[in-house]
């Protein structure tokens, strides 16, 4: 049986927790691309989201990759990190990358 879908990204819960957005500080946060439900636990500890709950279906992967690259990270590094916890289904989201 598949887990119950959670239709919000980590950012949704991060906002509810009133955290300062880590992307302002050019931290490699995967919150916008990641399914929430964890309560934005890592950003709430001042740590970037590593994407461990898998892809958020509404994530704008293309734009977020560009943003992360503008922080000085290579495309290869970005894709590798997204794939760490993305599972097989992440391939649907990053097919163009």
């Amino acid at each position: 049986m598949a887990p119950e879908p959670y239709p919000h990204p980590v950012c949704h819960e991060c906002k509810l927790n009133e955290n300062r957005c880590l992307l302002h500080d050019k931290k490699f946060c995967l919150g916008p691309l990641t399914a929430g439900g964890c309560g934005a636990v890592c950003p709430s500890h001042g740590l970037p989201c590593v994407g461990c709950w898998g892809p958020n279906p509404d994530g704008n992967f293309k734009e977020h990759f560009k943003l992360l690259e503008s922080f000085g990270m290579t495309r290869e590094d970005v894709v590798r990190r997204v794939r760490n916890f993305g599972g097989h289904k992440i391939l649907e989201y990053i097919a163009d990358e």
Partner: protein
Amino acid sequence: MTRREIKVEPLARVEGHGGILVEIEDDTIVDVKVRILEGPRLFETLVIGKTPEEDLSIVPRICAICNLSHKYASLRALEKALDIEVPEATDHYRHLMHHGEIIESHSLHLYFLALPDFFGYDNAVQMAERFGDVVTNALRLKKFGNRVMRTMGGRMIHGENPVLGGFGKLPSRETLLSIRSEAEELLPFALQTIELLSTLEVPDHMERDTQFLCCKPPHSGYDYFGDAFLTSDGKEHPTEHYQQVIVERVVGHSFAKRSTYNGKPFSVGALARTLLLGDRLEGHAKDALNDLYSPQWHRNPLYNNFAQAVEQVFSLEGIISTVDAVLGCEPPEVVPPARDSGTGVGAVEAPRGTLVHHYELKGGKTVFANYITPTAMFLDDIEAFIRRSGEELLTRGETDNMELQFEMIARAYDPCISCSAHLVTVRRR
């Protein structure tokens, strides 16, 4: 010639999917296999080409029960590799986190997985009919361990809060004080458990001599980490030499590797620690060990359950003293890495025994990793004890319920089967 098999599958009340297969020919044990059926986990290859930060979020996924031990072992290895020296205050916070995990894991094992066997119940729920207070308090103790893990780890399981060089966020003074007072409240129950255990009759049919190994703490007290291993032959080995001390091999019936020391099986875990480091204990923990200890501990793995009860006392007292130490320190800053390449071996004592993580980093990426879990160390010893038990039970003619006796031996070690299934050989290029 009559040939029969005793097969326990699945082995219940342990973590993961395993089984026991004992073959008997006439009245002789011809084969004993502790079968690890969990699929291989491949972690040593999963981290290749990744940064230390990624390693630290991937590797604790080896285990949900002792995820913080895996985190801690990786932190110790990676910080050595990257030449990071954390301040004393960070060490205190890490102690706190580790004590929480020991309490969480030991209380789960002792009361819920092991004790029902001793009292003749199938599980702790049945046991609650006669031992309601014990089961209720055991749940409180387990919950407290989880609370400490959640506070320091960041969430119940796989928290990302411990990072290279420090912590993302430190708990408030109020939280620390409330953890301290909860530890004080639970200490009487941990001591009551010592009394309860002292009344138990412990089977002796498996007794044989074995070897023990644990980490040697870098100070004069009892602890759960170190940069050297102590072995029961009185020797001391630097952790960097772990591959010569803990010699691994692959066997056909198990997805976990097997280990020997000096070519023979050995034990790790609470029993090994209390036997090798017990004279370093202080306070109630020292009294608890004195009350329970007997020379049989050296020959009988069922006393691992007793040793866990002693460590519960030690860790509750440890939480009280660690909170006091933390409150006397300035909040530590996160220490950045001094370099991006290097090699490091980190060893800690996970609840069920010695855990070794080894990394080699080049240009900020992992090029080699090796993990040896406690279960991969003591599986040979479980088989040896089951064989001895089978021989003795056949000699005594006590063959009514050999399955349960074998299960109790395996369970006493609190094996973590999912952790242990690492059948990957990583070749250096």
